[in-house]
Each structure stands twice: as structure tokens, then as C-alpha cells.
């Protein structure tokens, strides 16, 4: 039986986080996991991808290898994971790989991290020599497909996380945020996330909290400074961006307070982000000139709109993937008939060589030039004779009956096939890595010949 590509795993589509985490593994441990998997003779090549949203094994193996891989995963995560595991083979597996690389299968469609994670997993597998020519081609084609999707569609356009949107908006008001002053009121989880995103832009951060200790603890994490809520007015005068996420009944920044603050700021623009529920900032404050006020619903609606826009782009992205999958499968088809083509050509060439070596000595006077001319003519006859069958072979690469017919007609012997003729040309199908390794060996042989 020939080797086949399969993908076996679970993702956010089929399993909850507590189920996914039972199978997940760190990138440092991936190498060891793959070594163990490849101990099984049936699995030729493998890549293990483990992210927070998916754990997937991409492998080239015999059908028995799929079962081995399934047992391996269930041993690690528990038998109850079986209903959550999905399996994709051949074309579906190629299509799935390309969809994952292009972020079409991600929880947040168009997110850029998955491509980096796939590359990391591929590198880890390459390091432990778990990747052969097939998976190498599959993954590099997948990366190229992802690149095409990102550049030819708007799949990655528009930010979809609330904190990134807040940051993007701040940049639309102030340009570069480096050197700007951001104020975080309250040390809640969402505020913290937005503050961390802002900190990455180079803005200096001040955290105000009722508990100074809590403010200082968070400030240490994001390289900011922590103060008591008593410094609110003083900090409001200096800030460019304010993120408010404090637990408070009634407005913390009411219109009366903000009117004085805005006057004292002398027309300097102020971006207020109120992500607290109940809200911390009086909505009327947003009517003041130079003040831009956004609440959590505003940010969320932008995120939703961007996400919907990305989803609309998936149709165009799928078309690109179809083209890329076809191109990969064409390569694969060519690969499966390559050993037969090489064997066929080699058989014809051997016949010509033998006949020439038998005939030439019998001729009375053959100069070196005549000999070369005869060799060239023979090679040309071989090429012309082989052209139609080789073309037919390449076109019908997926038809096993055709391959079988060619083998029988031209007495090409498949290695390990006892029915072949004694003088039959060998079509390598070695135990470990199928046609791909055979191809590799033939390549090596041909390059050695070149050097010779």
C-alpha cells in the first residue's frame, strides 16, 4: 500500500480548551514527541503543531500509521478525546494545511500568529529530521499560499481585538504614540490588556488605582508608574490617552470635572476610552472640542465590523487556496509516476546502449565522429518513441491501472514484486519513505554521475 498524507488532531472547532490542553505540548517538547512517533515504521514523516487553538499531527504514512498516530494521541490525552479528533486525508489534508496556514481555520480569521506557529513547528520537526521531501514541499507550499492570501485579499485588514483597536485609534489621533502619556484608571483585566498593548507602542504609562499597591504591581509588569486615585486630576491634565476600567458606581470622570480639566489643558486633544461597565465617564464629555470618547460597545462594534469584513474575504481566499492545492497535487502526481518514468527511460537507454555496443564493433570503419552521430540518432529515436507514453503517464498519474499496464508492457519491476521479469527495470518503492525517497536516491545517483 502506498503512503498517504493525513492530518489528525483537534481544534477550537471540535474541542473545548480543557480538552485541547490535554493534548498540547510545548515547542521545546515537540522534537521528543516526534522522535517517539517516528519509532513506528509506518509513519515516514511528521510535523506536530500545538497552539492554544489546535493540536494537529501532519504525517505521511501507510494507513496503519494513521491508527498508530491515533493511539499515540489518545494515550497522551485520554480515550474520551476520540469523538473530538478529526482526520483528513489526501486532498482534504492538503486543503486543510493550506487553510490553517492562511488563517482561514483560525478562531479569529486572518490573525497572523498561526503562520509563525506553523513555521516554528515545521522548524522543530526539521531539526529532528522528521520532515522529508513530501512534508517539506507541503509546508513550503502552504506558507506560499498563506502569503498569497494575505497579499491578494483583505483577510488580514482591520484590527479585531478591543485593545488593538483602542491603540489604533490613539495613533489616528496622535500619530506616533512614542513619548505620549497614557493613563490607566483602575487595574482591571481589560484595562490591563489595553495598557499592555499601548506600552508596546512606546507610550509612557501611569496606573491609578484605589489600592496603590495593586497599581504599582501592575506598573512593574508594564514598565509604568503606579499612583493613588487621588492624583486623578493632576494626571488627567498631563495625559494624552485615558483608559478607564475602574469598578465604580456613578461617573468617575463627570462633566463638571472634565470641563475644568479640558479648559486647563488648553485645547490639547484627549482620547478617552471607557471600558468599564458601568461606565466611568459621562458620555457628554465626548461632546467637548478636542475630546474623543469611546466606550466598550464602540470598540466592540469596530471589532465585529472588521471581523465581518475579513469573513467576506474568505471566499476570495478559498479560490486562491483551490489553485494552490491543485498545483500541489499536480506536483504530487508527477512525483508518483517519476520512478516509473525514470525506469522506463533507463530501460530504453540500456537497450540502445547494448545494441550499439554489439553492432559498432562489427562495422568495418567507424570514425569517432560517426560513432557519436549514431549515438545521438539512437537517443533521438528513444526520445521520440517515449514521448507519447510518457505524456500519457504524466496525465494519468492517478490511474493505477495505467501504471500497472506500463509496468507489465515494458517489464518494469517494482522492487519486492516477485512477479517481475528477471531482466526487468526496477521501480524503487523502498520500505521507509516510498516514492519520495526513491526519487531522492535517483537524484543523488544522477548528481554523483554528474560529478563523475
Amino acid at each position, binding site marked *: 500500500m502506498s503512503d498517504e498524507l493525513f492530518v489528525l488532531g483537534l481544534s477550537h472547532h471540535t474541542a473545548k480548551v480543557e480538552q485541547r490542553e490535554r493534548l498540547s505540548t510545548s515547542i521545546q517538547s515537540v522534537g521528543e514527541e516526534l522522535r517517539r512517533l517516528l519509532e513506528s515504521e509506518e509513519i515516514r514523516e511528521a510535523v506536530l503543531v500545538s497552539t492554544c487553538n489546535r493540536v494537529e499531527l501532519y504525517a505521511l504514512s501507510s494507513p496503519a500509521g494513521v491508527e498508530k498516530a491515533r493511539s499515540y494521541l489518545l494515550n497522551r490525552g485520554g480515550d474520551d478525546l476520540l469523538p473530538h479528533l478529526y482526520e483528513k486525508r489526501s486532498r482534504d489534508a492538503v486543503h486543510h494545511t493550506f487553510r490553517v496556514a492562511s488563517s482561514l481555520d483560525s478562531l479569529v480569521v486572518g490573525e497572523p500568529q498561526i503562520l509563525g506557529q506553523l513555521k516554528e513547528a515545521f522548524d522543530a520537526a526539521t531539526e529532528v529530521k522528521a520532515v522529508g521531501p513530501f512534508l517539506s514541499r507541503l509546508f513550503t507550499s502552504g506558507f506560499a499560499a498563506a502569503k498569497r492570501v494575505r*497579499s491578494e485579499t*483583505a483577510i488580514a*485588514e*482591520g484590527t479585531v481585538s478591543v485593545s488593538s483597536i483602542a491603540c489604533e*485609534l490613539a*495613533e*489616528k*489621533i*496622535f*500619530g506616533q504614540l512614542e513619548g505620549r502619556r497614557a493613563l490607566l484608571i483602575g487595574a482591571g483585566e481589560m484595562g490591563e490588556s489595553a495598557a499592555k498593548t499601548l506600552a508596546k507602542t512606546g507610550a509612557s504609562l501611569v496606573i491609578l488605582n484605589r489600592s496603590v499597591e495593586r497599581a504599582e504591581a501592575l506598573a512593574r509588569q508594564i514598565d509604568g508608574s503606579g499612583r493613588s486615585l487621588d492624583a486623578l486630576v493632576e494626571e488627567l491634565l498631563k495625559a494624552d490617552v485615558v483608559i478607564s476600567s475602574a469598578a465604580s458606581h456613578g461617573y468617575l470622570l463627570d462633566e463638571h470635572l472634565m470641563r475644568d480639566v479640558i479648559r486647563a489643558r*488648553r*485645547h*490639547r*486633544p484627549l482620547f478617552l476610552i471607557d471600558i468599564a461597565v458601568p461606565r466611568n465617564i459621562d458620555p457628554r464629555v*465626548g461632546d467637548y*472640542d*478636542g475630546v*474623543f470618547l*469611546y466606550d466598550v460597545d*464602540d470598540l466592540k*462594534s*469596530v471589532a465585529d*465590523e*472588521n471581523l465581518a*469584513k475579513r469573513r467576506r474575504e474568505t471566499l476570495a481566499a478559498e479560490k486562491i487556496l483551490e489553485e494552490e492545492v491543485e498545483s500541489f497535487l499536480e506536483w504530487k502526481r508527477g512525483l508518483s509516476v517519476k520512478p516509473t518514468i525514470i525506469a522506463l527511460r533507463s530501460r530504453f537507454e540500456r537497450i540502445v546502449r547494448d545494441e550499439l555496443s554489439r553492432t559498432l564493433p562489427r562495422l568495418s570503419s567507424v570514425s569517432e565522429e560517426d560513432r557519436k552521430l549514431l549515438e545521438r540518432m539512437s537517443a533521438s529515436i528513444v526520445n521520440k518513441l517515449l514521448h507519447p507514453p510518457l505524456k500519457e503517464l504524466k496525465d494519468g498519474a492517478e490511474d493505477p491501472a495505467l501504471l500497472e499496464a506500463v509496468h507489465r508492457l515494458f517489464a518494469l519491476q517494482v522492487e519486492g514484486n516477485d512477479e517481475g521479469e528477471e531482466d526487468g527495470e526496477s521501480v524503487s518503492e523502498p520500505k521507509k519513505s516510498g516514492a519520495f525517497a526513491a526519487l531522492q536516491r535517483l537524484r543523488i545517483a544522477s548528481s554523483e554521475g554528474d560529478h563523475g
Partner: protein
Amino acid sequence: MWVSAFFIITIALYLTAWTLELASVFRPYRGARKLSAILVGGAACAHLAYIAFEYYIHRHSPLADLNGSLAALSLGVIVALLLIQQRKKIPSLGIFIIPITLVFLLGAALIRGVAEVPERVASALLQVHIAFNVSGLIAFTLAAAAALAYIVQEHLLRKKRIVGAFQQLPSLEVLDNVSARASQIGFPLLTAGVITGAVFITRAGSGAFWGSTQTIGILTWIVFAFVLVLRLVGGYRGKRAALGTLIGFACGVSVLAAYALRIGGGV
């Protein structure tokens, strides 16, 4: 024939570049900005050829009368835009600048011969006066375009329409800075224009050339002076400063319109 050909090519290239830039705001695609910049560059070359042929064939100096000044003014604005784009890479500013340029250029063609300068008043000082005013107006056109972009962007931000076109426009800070800087450059040039104009009128004798056109010119100077002082002393910026800049620019354009319609007297 050559003049007309270059004029038509210039207009066609400006229109194509503008359409392309506008389309890329609503549906961004790769290479659109670069192509638009190339088209604007090509249009500027055709524009220069138009002015050069106009001078060569009709002996029509760009600083001799209103239509020549308008042609030079529109080319100056585009050259300034190209310089800004090369240095600062401010996206989509052309959307606001190219239409203004087109209006000036079409004005140059449509009002041909309307505001010719009489022989008796033509002098080198007048040409210096026009050169200062045209240079000042180039800067104010940039300031006004940035101010207009600011108001559009601020409106979108306030209405929370922050996907689509909003994402392609520059930040408020950048637009405010461009508007302020261009006003600061334009103001001394306009001041020099006002002074040379005053000297020219004085030399020409009494108030023969004083009229409502000159009054609007002075008003333009006052508005820009006001905006700059408020920016400097009162810390004004943003929408109010942008509105002030647009009012000042409208006054400046009114001066040109008044010359074109000959409603203000004088030259």
C-alpha cells in the same frame, strides 16, 4: 496646438490620479498609491510644459497676469504636494489637493485675457508682488487641504465611523502639523505680498488701485495672522484652527475670484 494638447494631457492625468487615489481610500489595493504618485508626477511635467509653451508661443509670462499666475499657482501646489509626499509619506493628501489644483488650472484657461495688466501699471515691482502672493497662496492651499482633511477625519472619528476611508487618512496630529507649518510658511510670503502691493499702489499714485479686492486681500492676511497668533499664544489647534485656516483660504481665493470678475477695481 501644443498648448492645448499639454493642457488636456495635464487635466486628464490629474483626474486619473485623483480617481485612483480616491478609489484606493475605499478599496485599498497594492501599488495604487505609487501609480497615483507617478501620474501626479507626469501631470506636473505636462503642466510645466503647458506653462513653458504658453510663454514660448504667446510670450505669456506666468507672473504677468491672473491666468498665468493661476497656472503657476496650481503647478506650485502640486510640486509642494510631491515634495511633502516624498519626505513625509502622508497618505491621501492628494485627494484634497488635486481638486483645488484643477480648479485653479481650469480657471487659468477659462479666464484667459480677462484680467490682463494694463501697460501703464506693469512693472517689476508688480511681478514681485504677484510672485509673493502666488507663493503664499501655494502654502495656504496646502494648509487648507490639510485642514479640510482634518475636519473630515475628525468628523469620522467623532461619529465613530472608523473603518474604511478613515483608516486610509493620516492622523489628526499629522494633518494639524502640516496645516500649521504651511500657514507659518505662507504668512510671511503673504505679508511680503501685501507690503509690495502697498508700495506699488503708493508709487502708482493715490488710491487709484485700491478697491474691494485689496480689502479682501488684507482680510486674508488678518485671518491668517489671527489663526497663527491663536495657535501660538492661545494653544489653539485641531478643528478650530482648521476652520480658521479654511476661512483664510476662502478669503485668498475670493481675491483671485474678484480679480477674475473685475469686481474689485484695480489690477
